[in-house]
């Protein structure tokens, strides 16, 4: 049996159904407040909350990715991510720009990660 055939054979309906559901969840969450055409009174506290929600959401996603390993806070400074993130932050607040943040952070992260094994 060819590899391609095998790939087709491994596909099962249950997984495709799960993926279909995940697609529905993407659509549902992103369009949650878009369906109704009724005038929506957005409470004042919610409006003010919107000043903080975006940056809070991003931080809640990013910070664990930088300072955690295998579900626990990192316990060693031999971790390339913290240096990469620190340099990226310094770049952003001194020079500015997302592209420079990525490049400078990766310039520190990759050698430490690949060569030093951090």
């Amino acid at each position, binding site marked *: 049996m060819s590899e391609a055939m095998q790939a*087709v054979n*491994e596909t099962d309906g249950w*997984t*495709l*159904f*799960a*993926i*279909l*559901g*995940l*697609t529905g*969840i*993407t*659509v549902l*969450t*992103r*369009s*949650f*407040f*878009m*369906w109704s055409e009724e005038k929506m009174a*957005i409470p004042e506290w*919610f409006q*003010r*909350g*919107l*000043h*903080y*929600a*975006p*940056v*809070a*959401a*991003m*931080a*809640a*996603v*990013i*910070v*664990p990715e*930088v300072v*955690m390993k295998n579900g626990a*806070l990192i316990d060693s400074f031999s971790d*390339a*991510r913290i240096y*990469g*993130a620190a340099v*990226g*932050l310094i770049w*952003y607040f001194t020079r500015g*720009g*997302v*592209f420079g*943040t*990525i*490049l400078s*952070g*990766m310039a520190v992260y*990759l050698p430490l*990660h690949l060569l030093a094994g951090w």
Partner: protein
Amino acid sequence: MTPLHALLQWVRHPRFIAGVRDMLPASPGIGAWGITTGVALANSGMSLVEVSAMTLMVFAGSSQLAAMPLIISGAPLWVIWLTALCVNLRFAVFSAHVRPFFMPFKLPKRITYAYLLTDLSYVVFIKKYKTVPTAAADIRGMDIYWSALGFVNWATWMTTSFIGIALASVIPLSWGLSFAGILALMGISCSLVTTRLRAVAAILAGAAAVATYALPMKLNILVGVSAAVLISLLLDRSRSPAHV
């Protein structure tokens, strides 16, 4: 006007070009993340059809990566979906924010545009548009601008995801390319830190998300956001609005 003419006029519009220009700086990050996600999916043990279907349809990196191990281990559907829901709940907040901007459009267009509402396109958009345009020409400009953000974001993600899937055996996950995605998100988030209280909100959310990491279904993200927004609201109430 032929459809081709209309399309050319659309992509040559200054707002389209502005949208492409505003989204491009984040593209290397989106791309590195796309490649990593593609590699991870291809190595997951799911079939090529499943991996391709997930990439083309789900279009949400964090929820794909959260769902992947659950699908492989044969977890119950409700666990998979509830996990994705928790990971994606932040988008519901984004959709409340963007709703007034999208309301001039008809329902199918609103839903299509909302499908393209990712972390990065959302942040770039709300930085550009603080108030809802009312003049027809401005609404059209916003329409074109959003389509450009969505297009660059979607095209970058799809292309690089499939590059990752194709090169899965050549690019090991251990290279840590996904870190570029983290750096892109970090840079974009920094651009949102325009007041001291927003910096506080970011730190609080990060700390709370770390502290509650052990919660199931990535609920730590939700806890982090709620705690940070709640405390920020209490703090800004006790200040004069000028400081916010």
